[in-house]
């Protein structure tokens, strides 16, 4: 069988990508097979998933969904779309982690923050000027649904505590700590280790400033429990949080979440 723009057709040996264009998508000029762009001369194999795209065309809603998943690596997407990930804190780390997870199609995200978007957030957090004053949960949900409308997003407004975390995030596959205050960072890890056995957990410590890229590390603390950062670069006067280095740490977090979901460690 072959899957062409979400239609399943019988497989015929020797079929090339360009043989399908006139039948399934006349004028197509971009060809994705199994999540990767290929030339129109590519010979297809049984089981291939093929997406034919006409650049600049406004797709229907159904087409849109298959186009959005076209670059998702098959097998990976099947796993992540069933996954549920909780994100604690929607600042420089949380907004970037959430964006990466939405784009790869993680099926369910729980977004938690107590705050509203304010101008000083915009140096590193993925919000825009038009969103100043909105709750971060609402603003980020809006942004993520513009990236990928085919995921489910739950929001939790209010301050998290060591006591509330296990209840709020009950049932998640991975819990991500993107908080700012080191006291609640420690409390969140303690809550997870004490009350959420077996959960995947990805925290962060030490990502301020513009220090060396390569001292930001992903350290394994326990099975499925990781802390990311350089361990020492605290945010403080003269040593602010900046988009580049916070982004490095956030993408360490996002990739580690994916690795946990795919059972890679």
């Amino acid at each position, binding site marked *: 069988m072959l899957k062409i723009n979400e239609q399943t057709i019988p497989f015929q040996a020797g079929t090339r990508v360009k043989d399908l264009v006139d039948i399934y998508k006349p004028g197509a000029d971009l060809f994705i097979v199994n999540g990767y762009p290929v030339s129109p001369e590519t010979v297809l194999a049984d089981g291939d998933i093929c997406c034919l795209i006409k650049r600049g065309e406004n797709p229907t809603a159904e087409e849109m969904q298959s186009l959005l998943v076209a670059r998702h690596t098959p097998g990976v997407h099947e796993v992540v779309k069933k996954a549920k990930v909780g994100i604690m*804190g929607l*600042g*420089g*780390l*949380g907004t970037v982690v959430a964006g990466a997870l939405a784009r790869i199609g993680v099926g369910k995200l729980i977004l938690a923050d107590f705050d509203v978007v304010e101008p000083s957030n915009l140096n590193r957090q993925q919000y825009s000027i038009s969103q100043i004053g909105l709750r971060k949960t609402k603003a980020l949900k809006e942004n993520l649904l513009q990236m990928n409308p085919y995921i489910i997003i739950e929001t939790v407004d209010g301050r998290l505590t*060591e006591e509330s975390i296990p209840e709020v995030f009950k049932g998640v596959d991975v819990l991500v*700590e*993107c*908080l*700012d*205050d*080191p*006291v609640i*960072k*420690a*409390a969140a*890890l*303690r809550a997870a*280790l*004490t009350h959420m056995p077996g959960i995947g957990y990805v*925290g*962060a*410590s*030490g*990502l*301020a400033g513009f220090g060396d890229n390569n001292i930001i590390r992903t350290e394994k*603390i326990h099975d499925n429990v990781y*802390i990311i*950062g350089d*361990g*020492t*670069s*605290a*945010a*403080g006067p003269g040593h602010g*949080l900046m988009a580049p280095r*916070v982004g490095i740490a956030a993408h360490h977090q996002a990739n580690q979440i994916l690795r946990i979901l795919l059972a890679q460690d």
Partner: protein
Amino acid sequence: MKITCNGETKEITSDTTLVSFIRDMKLNPDTVVAECDGRIIQRAEYDTLILQEGNVLELIRFVGGG
């Protein structure tokens, strides 16, 4: 007496509490997760837990920023 902290041997006096050990390491106890012989120690216990010879302690320290 000796304990192991984050893989290193440390010499401490016999009545050292966890909280005083963490402070001696120049850390703020509220920003540290402590595991002693594989058990996660709750924050309320830091002040009363007296370290014993041979304890294996793991301290996970957090700094601010997110």
